[in-house]
Protein backbone atom coordinates (compact mmCIF):
# COMPACT_ATOMS: atom_id res chain seq x y z
CA UNK A 1 0.00 0.00 0.00
CA UNK A 2 1.06 3.55 -0.75
CA UNK A 3 1.10 4.78 2.82
CA UNK A 4 3.58 7.02 4.55
CA UNK A 5 5.83 4.10 5.53
CA UNK A 6 6.85 4.06 1.83
CA UNK A 7 8.91 7.20 2.36
CA UNK A 8 11.90 6.69 0.08
CA UNK A 9 12.40 9.96 -1.79
CA UNK A 10 10.37 12.18 0.51
CA UNK A 11 11.65 15.54 1.67
CA UNK A 12 10.83 17.49 4.77
CA UNK A 13 11.85 15.23 7.65
CA UNK A 14 14.94 17.27 8.41
CA UNK A 15 18.49 16.12 9.16
CA UNK A 16 19.38 12.64 10.39
CA UNK A 17 19.48 12.98 14.18
CA UNK A 18 22.12 10.82 15.87
CA UNK A 19 22.30 10.10 19.57
CA UNK A 20 25.65 9.77 21.28
CA UNK A 21 26.06 6.54 23.29
CA UNK A 22 22.60 5.46 22.34
CA UNK A 23 21.21 2.74 24.61
CA UNK A 24 19.83 -0.38 22.92
CA UNK A 25 16.45 0.43 24.49
CA UNK A 26 15.29 3.79 25.80
CA UNK A 27 12.76 2.29 28.19
CA UNK A 28 12.06 -1.09 29.75
CA UNK A 29 8.82 -1.39 27.77
CA UNK A 30 10.75 -1.11 24.49
CA UNK A 31 12.79 -4.13 25.53
CA UNK A 32 9.58 -6.02 26.28
CA UNK A 33 8.04 -5.09 22.92
CA UNK A 34 11.15 -6.29 21.13
CA UNK A 35 11.22 -9.59 22.98
CA UNK A 36 7.48 -10.21 22.63
CA UNK A 37 7.54 -9.58 18.91
CA UNK A 38 10.33 -12.01 18.18
CA UNK A 39 8.70 -14.52 20.49
CA UNK A 40 5.39 -14.14 18.65
CA UNK A 41 7.05 -14.53 15.27
CA UNK A 42 8.83 -17.61 16.51
CA UNK A 43 5.56 -18.99 17.93
CA UNK A 44 3.91 -18.31 14.56
CA UNK A 45 1.25 -16.12 16.15
CA UNK A 46 1.69 -14.13 12.96
CA UNK A 47 4.30 -13.90 10.25
CA UNK A 48 6.75 -11.10 9.51
CA UNK A 49 4.81 -9.82 6.50
CA UNK A 50 1.58 -9.64 8.49
CA UNK A 51 3.42 -7.74 11.21
CA UNK A 52 4.84 -5.24 8.73
CA UNK A 53 1.46 -4.74 7.12
CA UNK A 54 0.00 -4.13 10.57
CA UNK A 55 2.40 -1.22 10.97
CA UNK A 56 1.82 0.11 7.45
CA UNK A 57 -1.90 0.38 8.12
CA UNK A 58 -1.43 2.83 10.98
CA UNK A 59 -3.04 6.19 10.29
CA UNK A 60 -0.24 8.18 8.61
CA UNK A 61 -0.43 10.95 11.21
CA UNK A 62 -0.09 8.39 13.99
CA UNK A 63 2.70 6.53 12.20
CA UNK A 64 4.77 9.70 11.97
CA UNK A 65 4.01 10.79 15.53
CA UNK A 66 5.06 7.42 16.96
CA UNK A 67 8.47 6.21 18.03
CA UNK A 68 9.88 3.03 16.53
CA UNK A 69 8.73 0.65 19.23
CA UNK A 70 5.38 2.40 19.48
CA UNK A 71 4.93 1.45 15.82
CA UNK A 72 5.92 -2.13 16.64
CA UNK A 73 3.38 -2.25 19.45
CA UNK A 74 0.69 -0.87 17.13
CA UNK A 75 1.50 -3.42 14.42
CA UNK A 76 1.63 -6.34 16.89
CA UNK A 77 -1.64 -5.34 18.53
CA UNK A 78 -3.38 -4.85 15.20
CA UNK A 79 -2.47 -8.29 13.93
CA UNK A 80 -3.07 -10.07 17.25
CA UNK A 81 -6.54 -8.59 17.55
CA UNK A 82 -7.37 -9.33 13.91
CA UNK A 83 -6.40 -12.92 14.47
CA UNK A 84 -8.38 -13.09 17.69
CA UNK A 85 -5.37 -13.91 19.85
CA UNK A 86 -6.31 -11.01 22.12
CA UNK A 87 -9.23 -8.61 21.88
CA UNK A 88 -9.06 -4.81 22.02
CA UNK A 89 -11.45 -4.93 24.96
CA UNK A 90 -9.37 -7.23 27.13
CA UNK A 91 -6.25 -5.29 26.30
CA UNK A 92 -7.91 -1.98 27.20
CA UNK A 93 -9.30 -3.48 30.41
CA UNK A 94 -5.99 -4.99 31.44
CA UNK A 95 -4.17 -1.74 30.67
CA UNK A 96 -6.61 0.24 32.82
CA UNK A 97 -6.16 -2.27 35.64
CA UNK A 98 -2.40 -1.82 35.51
CA UNK A 99 -2.67 1.95 35.37
CA UNK A 100 -4.84 1.85 38.48
CA UNK A 101 -2.65 -0.69 40.31
CA UNK A 102 0.88 -0.07 39.13
CA UNK A 103 2.45 -2.25 41.82
CA UNK A 104 0.22 -5.27 41.46
CA UNK A 105 1.26 -8.27 39.44
CA UNK A 106 -1.28 -8.03 36.66
CA UNK A 107 -1.83 -11.72 36.17
CA UNK A 108 -0.66 -15.00 37.61
CA UNK A 109 2.68 -15.78 36.04
CA UNK A 110 2.18 -18.42 33.41
CA UNK A 111 4.40 -21.40 33.27
CA UNK A 112 6.46 -21.99 30.19
CA UNK A 113 4.16 -22.33 27.19
CA UNK A 114 6.20 -25.14 25.80
CA UNK A 115 8.98 -27.33 27.07
CA UNK A 116 11.38 -26.67 24.24
CA UNK A 117 14.27 -24.31 24.85
CA UNK A 118 14.09 -20.92 23.19
CA UNK A 119 15.60 -20.79 19.72
CA UNK A 120 17.00 -17.73 18.03
CA UNK A 121 14.14 -15.96 16.21
CA UNK A 122 13.69 -17.46 12.79
CA UNK A 123 13.62 -14.07 11.15
CA UNK A 124 17.10 -13.01 12.01
CA UNK A 125 19.31 -16.03 12.19
CA UNK A 126 19.64 -19.69 11.43
CA UNK A 127 18.81 -21.21 8.09
CA UNK A 128 16.81 -18.89 5.97
CA UNK A 129 13.14 -19.00 6.98
CA UNK A 130 11.80 -17.53 3.73
CA UNK A 131 13.91 -19.43 1.20
CA UNK A 132 12.17 -22.16 -0.79
CA UNK A 133 13.35 -24.73 -3.33
CA UNK A 134 13.23 -23.61 -6.95
CA UNK A 135 10.30 -25.11 -8.85
CA UNK A 136 11.16 -23.70 -12.27
CA UNK A 137 14.12 -21.91 -13.84
CA UNK A 138 14.16 -18.15 -13.18
CA UNK A 139 12.64 -15.98 -15.90
CA UNK A 140 15.51 -13.51 -15.95
CA UNK A 141 19.28 -13.92 -16.18
CA UNK A 142 22.19 -11.80 -15.00
CA UNK A 143 22.45 -8.65 -17.09
CA UNK A 144 18.88 -8.78 -18.39
CA UNK A 145 17.18 -5.41 -18.80
CA UNK A 146 13.91 -5.29 -16.90
CA UNK A 147 11.20 -2.79 -16.13
CA UNK A 148 9.32 -2.86 -12.84
CA UNK A 149 5.57 -3.07 -12.99
CA UNK A 150 3.52 -0.01 -12.18
CA UNK A 151 1.17 -1.35 -9.52
CA UNK A 152 -0.67 0.48 -6.73
CA UNK A 153 -1.87 -2.28 -4.43
CA UNK A 154 -3.85 -1.48 -1.31
CA UNK A 155 -2.34 -4.67 0.05
CA UNK A 156 1.17 -5.26 1.38
CA UNK A 157 3.97 -4.97 -1.16
CA UNK A 158 7.75 -4.67 -1.10
CA UNK A 159 7.98 -2.76 -4.37
CA UNK A 160 8.39 0.85 -3.20
CA UNK A 161 6.65 3.65 -5.07
CA UNK A 162 9.90 5.23 -6.19
CA UNK A 163 10.87 2.09 -8.12
CA UNK A 164 7.65 1.44 -10.02
CA UNK A 165 7.55 1.59 -13.79
CA UNK A 166 11.36 2.01 -13.87
CA UNK A 167 14.07 0.38 -15.94
CA UNK A 168 16.84 -1.60 -14.31
CA UNK A 169 19.25 -4.47 -14.84
CA UNK A 170 19.38 -7.87 -13.12
CA UNK A 171 22.49 -7.80 -10.94
CA UNK A 172 22.18 -10.93 -8.78
CA UNK A 173 19.93 -13.97 -8.52
CA UNK A 174 19.17 -14.64 -4.89
CA UNK A 175 17.09 -17.81 -5.27
CA UNK A 176 13.44 -18.48 -4.49
CA UNK A 177 11.61 -16.84 -1.60
CA UNK A 178 8.15 -16.59 -0.05
CA UNK A 179 6.20 -13.73 -1.68
CA UNK A 180 5.24 -11.11 0.95
CA UNK A 181 2.33 -9.71 -1.10
CA UNK A 182 0.66 -13.12 -0.64
CA UNK A 183 2.09 -14.14 2.72
CA UNK A 184 0.83 -10.98 4.44
CA UNK A 185 -2.74 -11.83 3.49
CA UNK A 186 -3.13 -15.54 4.26
CA UNK A 187 -2.90 -16.24 0.55
CA UNK A 188 -0.14 -18.80 0.97
CA UNK A 189 3.53 -18.45 0.13
CA UNK A 190 3.58 -18.15 -3.70
CA UNK A 191 7.36 -18.65 -3.68
CA UNK A 192 9.23 -17.11 -6.59
CA UNK A 193 12.71 -15.92 -7.57
CA UNK A 194 14.12 -12.76 -6.04
CA UNK A 195 16.62 -10.68 -7.97
CA UNK A 196 18.87 -7.82 -7.02
CA UNK A 197 18.02 -5.16 -9.59
CA UNK A 198 20.36 -2.27 -10.26
CA UNK A 199 18.83 1.09 -11.14
CA UNK A 200 20.73 4.10 -12.35
CA UNK A 201 19.71 6.85 -9.96
CA UNK A 202 18.89 9.09 -12.92
CA UNK A 203 16.27 6.62 -14.09
CA UNK A 204 14.58 6.96 -10.72
CA UNK A 205 15.11 10.57 -9.74
CA UNK A 206 15.86 12.29 -13.03
CA UNK A 207 17.97 15.39 -13.29
CA UNK A 208 18.18 15.97 -9.56
CA UNK A 209 20.84 13.32 -8.97
CA UNK A 210 23.95 14.72 -7.33
CA UNK A 211 26.63 12.46 -8.86
CA UNK A 212 27.27 8.88 -9.93
CA UNK A 213 24.70 6.92 -7.98
CA UNK A 214 22.95 3.57 -8.33
CA UNK A 215 20.22 1.93 -6.29
CA UNK A 216 19.88 -1.79 -5.71
CA UNK A 217 16.58 -3.35 -4.69
CA UNK A 218 15.74 -7.01 -4.09
CA UNK A 219 12.62 -7.64 -6.13
CA UNK A 220 10.35 -10.65 -6.60
CA UNK A 221 9.87 -11.94 -10.12
CA UNK A 222 6.21 -10.87 -10.19
CA UNK A 223 7.33 -7.24 -9.93
CA UNK A 224 9.42 -7.46 -13.11
CA UNK A 225 8.78 -7.42 -16.85
CA UNK A 226 11.30 -7.71 -19.68
CA UNK A 227 12.38 -4.21 -20.74
Amino acid sequence: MNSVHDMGGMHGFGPVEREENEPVFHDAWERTVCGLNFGLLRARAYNLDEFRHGIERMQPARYLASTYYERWLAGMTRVLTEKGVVTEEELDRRTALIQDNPDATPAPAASSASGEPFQPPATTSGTHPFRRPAAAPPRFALGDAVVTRNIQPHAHTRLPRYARGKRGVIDRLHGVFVFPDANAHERGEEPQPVYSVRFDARDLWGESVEGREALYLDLWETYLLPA
Partner: protein
Amino acid sequence: MGKNHPNVEPYVASRVRALESLLLEKGILASDTVDKVVGRFQDDTGPMIGARAVARAWVDPAYKRLLLDNSAEALAQFGLRYDMLNVVENTPDVHNVVVCTLCSCYPWPVLGLPPAWYKSPPYRSRVVIEPRSVLREFGLEIDDAREIRVWDSSAELRYMVLPQRPPGTERLSEEELVPLVTRDAMIGVADVPSPALVG
Protein backbone atom coordinates in the same frame (compact mmCIF):
# COMPACT_ATOMS: atom_id res chain seq x y z
CA MET B 1 -4.32 4.03 43.97
CA GLY B 2 -6.78 5.79 41.70
CA LYS B 3 -6.76 7.14 38.21
CA ASN B 4 -5.11 10.35 39.34
CA HIS B 5 -2.15 8.73 40.98
CA PRO B 6 0.65 11.17 40.25
CA ASN B 7 3.27 8.49 39.62
CA VAL B 8 1.17 6.42 37.26
CA GLU B 9 3.40 4.89 34.62
CA PRO B 10 3.13 6.06 31.00
CA TYR B 11 0.16 4.58 29.20
CA VAL B 12 2.31 2.80 26.65
CA ALA B 13 4.30 1.02 29.39
CA SER B 14 1.11 -0.23 31.02
CA ARG B 15 -0.24 -1.36 27.68
CA VAL B 16 2.89 -3.38 26.99
CA ARG B 17 2.67 -5.01 30.43
CA ALA B 18 -0.99 -5.74 29.74
CA LEU B 19 -0.21 -7.35 26.40
CA GLU B 20 2.59 -9.41 27.89
CA SER B 21 0.43 -10.65 30.75
CA LEU B 22 -2.37 -11.65 28.36
CA LEU B 23 0.01 -13.54 26.10
CA LEU B 24 1.44 -15.42 29.07
CA GLU B 25 -2.00 -16.20 30.48
CA LYS B 26 -3.16 -17.58 27.16
CA GLY B 27 -0.08 -19.73 26.88
CA ILE B 28 1.05 -18.07 23.64
CA LEU B 29 4.45 -17.22 25.07
CA ALA B 30 6.51 -18.55 27.94
CA SER B 31 7.34 -16.22 30.80
CA ASP B 32 11.04 -16.20 29.95
CA THR B 33 10.63 -15.36 26.25
CA VAL B 34 11.51 -11.68 26.45
CA ASP B 35 14.65 -12.27 28.49
CA LYS B 36 15.84 -15.03 26.20
CA VAL B 37 15.21 -13.10 23.00
CA VAL B 38 16.64 -9.83 24.15
CA GLY B 39 19.50 -11.46 25.96
CA ARG B 40 20.55 -13.02 22.72
CA PHE B 41 20.53 -9.66 20.92
CA GLN B 42 22.29 -7.90 23.74
CA ASP B 43 24.90 -10.54 24.51
CA ASP B 44 25.50 -12.93 21.66
CA THR B 45 25.44 -10.58 18.69
CA GLY B 46 26.32 -7.00 18.13
CA PRO B 47 28.85 -5.33 15.89
CA MET B 48 31.56 -7.74 17.06
CA ILE B 49 30.93 -10.49 14.53
CA GLY B 50 30.72 -8.02 11.67
CA ALA B 51 33.93 -6.33 12.80
CA ARG B 52 35.72 -9.66 13.15
CA ALA B 53 34.69 -10.69 9.65
CA VAL B 54 35.87 -7.37 8.23
CA ALA B 55 39.22 -7.57 10.02
CA ARG B 56 39.81 -11.09 8.78
CA ALA B 57 38.88 -10.10 5.22
CA TRP B 58 41.46 -7.31 5.39
CA VAL B 59 44.29 -9.66 6.32
CA ASP B 60 43.23 -12.78 4.40
CA PRO B 61 42.39 -12.45 0.67
CA ALA B 62 40.86 -15.93 0.56
CA TYR B 63 38.57 -15.10 3.47
CA LYS B 64 37.61 -11.86 1.80
CA ARG B 65 36.62 -13.75 -1.35
CA LEU B 66 34.57 -16.16 0.76
CA LEU B 67 32.85 -13.35 2.68
CA LEU B 68 31.83 -11.65 -0.56
CA ASP B 69 30.79 -14.83 -2.38
CA ASN B 70 29.42 -17.03 0.41
CA SER B 71 28.89 -15.07 3.58
CA ALA B 72 27.15 -17.96 5.33
CA GLU B 73 30.31 -20.05 5.20
CA ALA B 74 32.46 -17.09 6.12
CA LEU B 75 30.32 -16.25 9.16
CA ALA B 76 30.30 -19.88 10.28
CA GLN B 77 33.97 -19.38 11.13
CA PHE B 78 32.74 -17.21 13.99
CA GLY B 79 30.12 -19.71 15.10
CA LEU B 80 27.21 -17.83 13.51
CA ARG B 81 24.62 -19.59 11.38
CA TYR B 82 23.22 -16.82 9.17
CA ASP B 83 22.54 -17.18 5.47
CA MET B 84 20.71 -13.93 4.65
CA LEU B 85 23.75 -11.69 4.39
CA ASN B 86 25.23 -10.03 1.31
CA VAL B 87 28.52 -8.27 1.86
CA VAL B 88 29.27 -5.40 -0.52
CA GLU B 89 32.77 -4.05 -0.88
CA ASN B 90 33.94 -0.46 -0.86
CA THR B 91 36.69 0.31 -3.37
CA PRO B 92 38.35 3.47 -4.66
CA ASP B 93 35.59 3.57 -7.31
CA VAL B 94 32.56 2.48 -5.29
CA HIS B 95 31.06 3.44 -1.95
CA ASN B 96 28.18 1.34 -0.57
CA VAL B 97 25.49 2.36 1.90
CA VAL B 98 22.60 0.31 3.34
CA VAL B 99 19.03 1.32 4.14
CA CYS B 100 15.55 -0.11 4.46
CA THR B 101 13.10 2.53 3.21
CA LEU B 102 9.93 0.51 3.92
CA CYS B 103 10.63 -0.58 7.49
CA SER B 104 13.91 -1.30 9.31
CA CYS B 105 15.58 -4.41 7.83
CA TYR B 106 19.11 -4.68 9.21
CA PRO B 107 21.64 -7.49 9.70
CA TRP B 108 21.12 -7.80 13.45
CA PRO B 109 23.13 -10.99 13.95
CA VAL B 110 26.27 -9.32 12.65
CA LEU B 111 25.71 -5.68 13.63
CA GLY B 112 23.46 -5.85 16.71
CA LEU B 113 20.25 -3.88 17.10
CA PRO B 114 20.09 -0.92 14.72
CA PRO B 115 20.55 2.65 15.96
CA ALA B 116 17.45 4.83 16.08
CA TRP B 117 18.62 7.04 13.21
CA TYR B 118 18.74 4.04 10.86
CA LYS B 119 15.03 3.46 11.51
CA SER B 120 14.08 7.14 11.38
CA PRO B 121 12.16 8.91 8.59
CA PRO B 122 15.01 11.32 7.77
CA TYR B 123 17.45 8.52 6.98
CA ARG B 124 14.95 6.22 5.28
CA SER B 125 13.48 8.98 3.12
CA ARG B 126 16.67 10.74 2.14
CA VAL B 127 19.51 8.30 1.66
CA VAL B 128 17.94 6.84 -1.50
CA ILE B 129 17.38 10.21 -3.18
CA GLU B 130 20.30 12.30 -1.89
CA PRO B 131 22.92 9.91 -0.53
CA ARG B 132 25.74 12.41 -0.99
CA SER B 133 23.99 14.99 1.19
CA VAL B 134 23.20 12.42 3.87
CA LEU B 135 26.75 11.08 3.94
CA ARG B 136 28.03 14.65 4.12
CA GLU B 137 26.00 15.12 7.32
CA PHE B 138 27.78 12.04 8.69
CA GLY B 139 31.09 13.70 7.81
CA LEU B 140 31.75 11.61 4.73
CA GLU B 141 32.50 13.48 1.51
CA ILE B 142 32.18 11.23 -1.55
CA ASP B 143 33.76 12.49 -4.74
CA ASP B 144 31.26 12.96 -7.59
CA ALA B 145 33.22 10.55 -9.75
CA ARG B 146 32.99 7.76 -7.20
CA GLU B 147 29.83 5.70 -7.56
CA ILE B 148 27.55 5.47 -4.56
CA ARG B 149 25.55 2.26 -4.38
CA VAL B 150 22.51 2.41 -2.14
CA TRP B 151 21.18 -0.99 -1.05
CA ASP B 152 17.50 -0.73 -0.15
CA SER B 153 16.77 -3.93 1.80
CA SER B 154 13.38 -4.69 0.27
CA ALA B 155 13.46 -8.50 0.63
CA GLU B 156 14.64 -11.11 3.13
CA LEU B 157 18.29 -10.45 2.42
CA ARG B 158 20.47 -8.22 4.49
CA TYR B 159 23.43 -6.08 3.58
CA MET B 160 26.71 -5.24 5.26
CA VAL B 161 29.45 -3.04 3.87
CA LEU B 162 33.04 -4.24 3.75
CA PRO B 163 34.83 -0.92 4.32
CA GLN B 164 38.22 -0.05 2.92
CA ARG B 165 41.17 -0.84 5.15
CA PRO B 166 42.47 2.50 6.32
CA PRO B 167 46.02 3.62 5.60
CA GLY B 168 48.49 3.21 8.45
CA THR B 169 47.21 -0.22 9.46
CA GLU B 170 49.61 -2.31 7.38
CA ARG B 171 51.42 -3.68 10.45
CA LEU B 172 48.34 -4.35 12.58
CA SER B 173 47.21 -7.90 13.21
CA GLU B 174 43.69 -9.16 12.69
CA GLU B 175 43.02 -8.84 16.43
CA GLU B 176 44.32 -5.28 16.46
CA LEU B 177 42.14 -4.36 13.47
CA VAL B 178 38.85 -5.60 14.97
CA PRO B 179 38.27 -2.67 17.37
CA LEU B 180 38.86 -0.16 14.55
CA VAL B 181 35.84 -1.39 12.60
CA THR B 182 32.77 0.64 13.53
CA ARG B 183 29.13 -0.18 13.11
CA ASP B 184 28.65 2.99 11.04
CA ALA B 185 31.37 1.88 8.62
CA MET B 186 29.59 -1.43 8.10
CA ILE B 187 26.30 0.42 7.39
CA GLY B 188 28.22 2.63 4.98
CA VAL B 189 27.75 6.04 6.59
CA ALA B 190 31.39 6.27 7.66
CA ASP B 191 34.84 5.14 6.66
CA VAL B 192 37.05 3.29 9.08
CA PRO B 193 39.35 6.01 10.36
CA SER B 194 43.07 5.65 10.21
CA PRO B 195 44.39 4.77 13.69
CA ALA B 196 46.75 7.73 13.45
CA LEU B 197 43.69 9.99 13.43
CA VAL B 198 41.93 8.07 16.16
CA GLY B 199 44.98 8.65 18.31
